[in-house]
């Protein structure tokens, strides 16, 4: 029984419509996400990405259609959204009703490399640290679905690279299905199994990314996928000269895992 349940796709959307006034922000969307699948959602501003994520997080309702999501889900937003008056470990277990909460918090914060900041108030954490606490807070609930709403957008470039590695590591360990909303095409290709491009509230295109992992932007085929996705988003690029070795070896972006 539980086996069958775990094999059923955790996320199933059929003909979902969400409209604000006359404008259909999500317009008849169908989407399945398999257990443990990492999906990235790209789209221009106003394409309905965030509305979709909010519906999946239970923060917004839909106007018609079918939407099925697991109860066990967690969301990490662009801002860490930690309670400033609670120490890091208390933030992690907020709303968690288990007897050994403190141990779970310690374990989760150790996983994200913050074992030494258990008692820190959010005001004393750096942007990257705060976002890692938010990640620990999501994962400690052992979600079947992890929703990430541009969680790396406000971080500096170096911290973002580390966060990419961390998220892949944690995804492999906890195996939730992940839906990542992002503006960053490279980030989507580096992290996801499948990239979905949303336009006018519908799936305009989806690409499976089968590049072997420990990906980097200089990998064979990476730039072609990138150019394809960018053109879908309305940015035309010359398919880059992959023959230029200086560029390929010097300006690569990596995502280990």
């Amino acid at each position, binding site marked *: 029984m539980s086996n069958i349940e775990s094999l059923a796709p955790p996320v199933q959307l059929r003909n979902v419509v969400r409209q604000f006034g006359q404008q259909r922000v999500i317009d008849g969307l169908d989407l399945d996400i398999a257990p443990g699948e990492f999906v990235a959602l790209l789209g221009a501003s106003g394409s309905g990405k965030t509305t979709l994520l909010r519906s999946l997080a239970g923060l917004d309702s839909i106007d018609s259609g079918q939407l099925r999501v697991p109860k066990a889900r967690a969301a990490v*937003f662009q801002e860490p959204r930690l309670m400033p*008056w609670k120490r890091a470990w208390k933030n992690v277990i907020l709303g968690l009703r288990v007897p050994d909460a403190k141990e779970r918090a310690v374990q989760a914060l150790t996983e994200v490399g913050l074992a030494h900041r258990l008692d820190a108030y959010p005001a004393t954490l750096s942007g990257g640290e705060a976002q890692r606490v938010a990640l620990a807070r999501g994962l400690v609930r052992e979600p079947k679905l992890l929703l990430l709403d541009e969680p790396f957008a406000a971080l500096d470039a170096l911290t973002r690279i580390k966060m990419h590695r961390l998220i892949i590591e944690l995804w492999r360990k906890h195996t939730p299905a992940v839906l990542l909303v992002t503006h960053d095409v490279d980030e989507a290709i580096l992290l996801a199994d499948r990239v979905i491009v949303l336009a006018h509230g519908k799936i305009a295109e989806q690409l499976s990314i089968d590049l072997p992992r420990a990906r980097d932007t200089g990998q064979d085929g990476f730039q072609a996928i990138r150019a394809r996705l960018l053109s879908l988003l309305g940015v035309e690029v010359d398919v880059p000269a992959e023959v230029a070795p200086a560029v390929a070896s010097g300006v690569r972006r990596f995502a280990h895992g």
Partner: protein
Amino acid sequence: MTEKSLNASSFSVDKVARLQGEPEGVSRLIPVWLRNWRTPEVLLRLVSPIVLLLAWELASELGLIPQRVIAAPSQIGGTLWAMIVSGELGKHLLVSLQRALLGLSIGVSIGVVAALVTGLSKRGEVILDSPMQMLRTIPSLALVPLFILWFGIGEFTKIALIVTGTIFPVYLNLFAGIRNIDPKLIEAANTLGLNRRELIWHVILPGSLPSFFVGLRYSLGISWLALVFVEQINTTAGIGFLASDARDFMRTDVIVICLLIYSVLGLLIDGLIRTLERFALAWRPSFVRN
């Protein structure tokens, strides 16, 4: 030796390091500890008040300032000491403090309850907020004649006036604090599965605490102000009584002592609130130390 040069494209400073060696000339005769002497800031700041006090004393001695205008500092000091020793000051102070604290605690409690009702429920806001806003605009001292008619001129009226003055600062600030909590935090709490009770306890109340403290400070100031006033009507004890009694006997020294007491107590109570804030709001960036 400093050499500055400025040409068309650059500005440069070339400064020779100051020699730390033996002093030259006359300064060699002065011992080192005296040469390095720095008068503490506190002492420097005390100079001008002391000079003013001395000038005031001198003017009183010379008869330039008559005693019916204001007493000499030495006389004020003497009276203060006598009042402390006889226990008279302590007695009046205790009565005033009791009045202020009783009125304040009742007023703040009412303000907090009302703000929780209106802040946490839409229905509560609809029912309670507009009467509160209407009452708020009435200066509480304008209620004196009505209160005297209703409750007489006894203790009840005095406390009631302090209560009416202290409700609204707490009410308004706490209500605003509850309503101004970052909606993103509330959203985060909802995704974490907090129920209504947990949301109030873990998010809304701690988040509105800073605003509550702002209101509490205003209320404290008002309770003090109301005290000065209500203790002038039919009292036999309290700092306000002391002041009005002194007026009847033209004792300017006692009046000044009363003013001093008000300001010192005001400062002390404000300090108390600051200490409370330091503990209750330890998470705020201004208090947090890395």
